[in-house]
């Protein structure tokens, strides 16, 4: 379960180029719930995810994961409970290390690292099995350095790494945006499969309205650092792309009126 309580973040506070990224944002996501976050550029989507993961420290407000306040914890401590996939395929993997070593790092995310050998035969077998689910042939390239993989392969690997240990919370920030349509579909299908099978509490940012319509239990629209609209239940189940775009248009009108 995730709860964000009145999260506030201003960049360059008090300067001419002051930017409010999060403006008293509140959000509650139940255990096993899959939330899809949409909103225009600069709405604060990435800032929200960064605040949850700890890479962005809030000016005020709280982040609760499964009821525990994690606001004061550094990134590596929060990583015990949450996993994320970045938009940039380069960011989520260690390029100069092998596929198997990357899998190992993710495998140990929520465990205490010991002085025992890392890549054991049992582990390698497990990784091979997990990767084979993708159907990209990565299971045969365990000893390949990740820098030799394509962007799509790297992103698929990032996803498998993220969902591996059944994290309490999965954060996806436009994780298919940098991929070609076919690979994006593969990665998206793998995402949905993992999220449904493992019942992961998930927050996914996307600019793809079709994805927002097709996937997830709830659509969360951000605007100017707060949640403007939430669509869940039957309404979410029956919504269409034009409906969603309509909501965007209403919001834009309101913004025009306000300015």
């Amino acid at each position, binding site marked *: 379960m995730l709860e964000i309580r009145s999260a506030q973040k201003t960049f360059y506070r008090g300067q001419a180029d002051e930017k409010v990224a999060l403006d008293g944002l509140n959000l509650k996501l139940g255990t096993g719930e899959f939330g899809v976050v949409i909103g225009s550029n600069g709405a604060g989507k990435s800032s929200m995810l960064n605040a949850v993961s700890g890479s962005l420290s809030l000016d005020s407000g709280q982040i609760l994961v499964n009821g525990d306040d994690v606001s004061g914890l550094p990134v590596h401590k929060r990583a015990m409970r949450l996993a994320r996939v970045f938009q940039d395929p380069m960011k989520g993997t260690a390029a100069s290390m092998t596929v198997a070593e990357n899998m190992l790092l993710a495998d140990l*995310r929520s465990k205490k690292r010991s002085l025992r*050998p*890392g890549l054991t035969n049992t582990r390698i077998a497990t990784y091979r099995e997990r990767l084979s689910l993708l159907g990209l042939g990565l299971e045969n390239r365990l000893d390949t350095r990740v820098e030799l993989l394509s962007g799509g392969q790297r992103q698929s690997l990032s996803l498998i790494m993220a969902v591996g240990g059944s994290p309490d919370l999965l954060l996806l920030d436009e994780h298919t945006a940098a991929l070609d349509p076919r690979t994006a579909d593969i990665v998206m299908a793998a995402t949905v499969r993992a999220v449904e099978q493992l019942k992961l509490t998930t927050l996914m940012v996307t600019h793809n309205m079709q994805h927002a319509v097709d996937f997830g239990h709830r659509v969360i629209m951000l605007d100017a650092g707060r949640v403007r609209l939430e669509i869940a239940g039957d309404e979410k189940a029956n919504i269409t792309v034009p409906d969603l775009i309509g909501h965007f248009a209403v919001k834009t009108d309101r913004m025009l009126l306000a300015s």
Partner: protein
Amino acid sequence: MDFVQTTFASFISLIPVTLAQSLILGFVVLGIMIPFRMLSFPDLTSEGAFPLGGCVCGVLLAAGASPLTAIAVALIAGFAAGCCTAFIHLRFRIHTLLAGILMMTMLYSVNLRIMGKSNLSVFGAPTVFDWVPFTQPGFPASKIVAVGLLSLAVFVLLNIYFKTERGTAVRAVGANPDMAEAQGINVWAATIGGVGLAGAFSALSGAVMVQSQGFADVNMGLGILINGLAALMIGEAIVGKQSVLRQIAAPFVGAIVYYQLVSLCLAAGMPPPDLKLATGLFVLAMLALPSLRRSRGPAPAREAFRE
């Protein structure tokens, strides 16, 4: 013909001495490689940690401490120096190279303070080489055996360590710190520990060198860094750096080959003062090679600037 013969004869006669020296200096090269390659933390601390180890060892030997105690304390001092460099970089966001320059400059004063004077003779004090059986103390053979065995042990242990769960995590910090952090790895702890370890190896080298040569000198680290870099590059050119095993073997192999090359140059009549220029040019050439190759190839020359 005569020239070649005398050159060759004097080179051959120096091989054992040079080998002993290069095995000792292999640890500095290791202390340069670990931050540089394993942690992506280009570091200059070794230039200060090497004489630090030497000075600490010299003072302790002069005070009558056992050679092993002297080495152990030198190791701790070197570790602390490395930790300080890493901390300066992490805490104040100062570039790693600048943090290293600060440390090595400050260490110069520290080293002088430790010794109380700029050099100290410990000739005749007991050394770790005295314990090597079947060899005469003070001759290269005992040094080669003692330091060779130590190198082998360090090589094997590091190889095991960098393949453990924790060692893999340390390498991840060098490969992609953001990713490492997102995988629950404490980047600070890994960086401080890793650079500290490197400082300890540099200091170890200095301490053993003092026991080998019988005196400590605050200036003994002068130019050690560029020599070490040259050795590392030769080592990587010979054994490669594609795997943990190769990367860890490179400093040891590189040191052995590099110092024999230097000895050959000196035997051939190169004036010793020119040595640093030659080494510098060599390192420059090794660093420039990839970009030269690229600009001649099909890739645009612009690529070279982007790095």
